[in-house]
């Protein structure tokens, strides 16, 4: 078995802590995505697994071996760098085989492995080219190919799509997902700041912020049951709407005084109501939980994002399937028809609470 385990891993740069004790368990064959805003420590964490950064405290296990002091090349990991890190003066073939050749592997074995990787990635016709003669997407494949050639237990990807244009990013995302299936038992760890990449690729997402794990879980778990305000806001697009509420007598009261009855009991006191854009619908003025004025309408084609400015001057986004043809400036009512989330003043999610349907 070759899973991976991080146990209270910490990292300081000088006196500045950047990773504050992280515990993550990764199963063999899992596709795990570390996601978070820039500066959250996700890349540092990946580089600590790779062995490119020293581990200040805590332990990293690959399989059942502690690898804190093991040389990167002996950890059975391969990494795909954001900038691809291809050797500019070597051909694609030489790039992919360089590590094996330098470690004294027989020529035929190197050639066979490179050919196999090239076949998997469909870059056989590029083998004689130099990196500067390749497009961004092709370089990306070569970088992945170099990792495949080493036949590692664990693949590490450090923001591999961020240097590609939008269209190519989607295509390559699909390729990577296919590759994971194709390579069977390989564990993959993937770092990105893009929550869409995280949602689409991952078996398991690790959300990081400021060197702390905010939540670990399957993509839909994170979407449906965010553990806190940060995860709720970070996962999903458009961002979840957050409404400040007060509790009074089994109901929550919005800022404009409208009151919504609650079902369920909890000791925690909800102060924020979260609701995604697709869990609301528009109604005529006066109907629904509250009313507001339409300020902007973004047309996507299959749907619209309608931005409603509330009486307490907050902008709420509502997704309307098909289209609403609501002119800007109209006063509309907003119905909280779907799933709601409640959070305490500390930003923690409250379980077992929902609005009473009437």
């Amino acid at each position: 078995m070759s899973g991976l385990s991080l146990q209270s891993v910490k990292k300081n740069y000088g006196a500045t802590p950047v990773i504050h004790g992280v515990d993550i368990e990764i199963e063999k064959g899992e596709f795990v995505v570390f996601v978070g805003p820039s500066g959250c420590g996700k890349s540092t964490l990946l580089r600590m697994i790779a062995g490119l950064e020293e581990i200040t405290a805590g332990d990293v296990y690959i399989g059942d071996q502690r690898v804190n002091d093991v040389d990167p090349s002996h950890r059975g990991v391969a990494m795909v760098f954001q900038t691809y890190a291809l050797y500019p003066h070597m051909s694609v073939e030489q790039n992919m085989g360089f590590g094996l050749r330098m470690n004294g592997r027989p020529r035929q074995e190197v050639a066979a492995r490179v050919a196999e990787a090239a076949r998997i990635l469909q870059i056989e016709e590029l083998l004689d080219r130099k990196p500067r003669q390749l497009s961004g997407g092709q370089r990306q494949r070569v970088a992945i190919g170099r990792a495949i050639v080493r036949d590692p237990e664990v693949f590490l990807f450090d923001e591999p799509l961020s240097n590609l244009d939008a269209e190519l990013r989607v295509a390559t995302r699909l390729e990577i997902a296919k590759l994971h299936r194709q390579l069977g038992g390989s564990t993959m760890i993937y770092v990105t700041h893009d929550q869409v990449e995280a949602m689409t690729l991952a078996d398991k997402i690790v959300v990081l912020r400021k060197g702390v794990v905010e939540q670990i879980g399957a993509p839909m778990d994170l979407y449906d049951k965010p553990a806190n305000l940060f995860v709720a806001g970070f996962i999903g697009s458009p961002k979840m709407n957050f409404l400040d509420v007060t509790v009074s007598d089994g109901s929550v009261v919005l800022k404009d005084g409208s009151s919504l009855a609650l079902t369920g009991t909890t000791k925690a006191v909800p102060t924020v109501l979260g609701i995604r854009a697709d869990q609301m619908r528009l109604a005529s003025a006066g109907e629904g939980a509250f009313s507001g004025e339409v300020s902007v309408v973004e047309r996507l084609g299959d749907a619209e994002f309608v931005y409603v400015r509330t009486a307490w001057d907050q902008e709420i986004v509502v997704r309307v399937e098909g289209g609403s043809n609501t002119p800007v400036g109209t006063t509309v009512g907003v119905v909280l028809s779907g799933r709601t989330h409640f959070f305490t003043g500390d930003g923690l999610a409250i379980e077992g609470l929902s609005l009473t349907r009437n």
Partner: protein
Amino acid sequence: MATTSSTATRPAFAARLWQSRIDYLFLVPGMLIFGMFILYPLFASQYFSLLRWSGFDANQTFIGLANYAELLTDKYFWDAFGRSFLFTSSTVPIQMLVSLVFAIILNDKLLRLSALFRTLIFLPVVTPVAVIGIVMSIILSPFNGPINLAMLDLQLLARPLDFLGDPKLVLWTLAAIYVWKWVGVTMVYWLAALQTVPAELYEAARLDGVKSWQMTLFVVLPMIMPFAIVIALISAISALNVFPLVQAMTQGGPYFASEVMEVYIFRNAFATAGAIPRLGYASAAGVFFGASIMGLTILQILAVRHLRNREKTNGR
């Protein structure tokens, strides 16, 4: 407005000159310095080399190429000429190699105190040559100089070595001091070249289990090769310009054993030995030497071009 014209027709040449008058005004101070101390001397020395001229206030007599004819038969000139190139061809490779080793070691950002080490290695560069001349003469002195004392104590030597007084040793001693003084500059050049190798390449190599010497040999050196040629060129030109060091330490002695080209020129022009100054003759030596360097430089630049072009065509 003195800025570029937006009219469709190309203005007459005089009008364009007038339009650029502020540009020319800005050039005046710089062109004065450049013209007086860089450009004029270049052409003036060619004229001087055709003169018999024995001092800055003495009469000048035009004698055509007679100075050059004499140069060609002057043993001291050819000795100095050869010595300059010997000095250059022995110091440049050593200097480049030593500084490359330093640069590769110091390029590791995680290395403790690497900034301090860089500063220390660079220190001789900022030390005036005159000071180095003095300190090194004392340190290498055969009479109680610390180096000789230390080597005698360790019984590496039976008798003190006269590093600067022995005609067989002196040029090599100067070469060693020269390398010591200037390695810092070449090291900075190499460090700049090494900056062009992205950190990810080292990391990728580490993950691939590529050893550092393999990485250096197969990745780093090929990548910084274009810089190596430029660095060699700059170093070679500087090594031909070794006058201050030699003058400060040996004045070309003993018995002319360290007389490089510039010392020869200086000796003839400024007559330090009490002889009659021969400015025209010294100029001829300078022109001949300068032209040789220029030729060498052009050859090197052509070589660089050739290599770069070849690389480009290979790349496509």
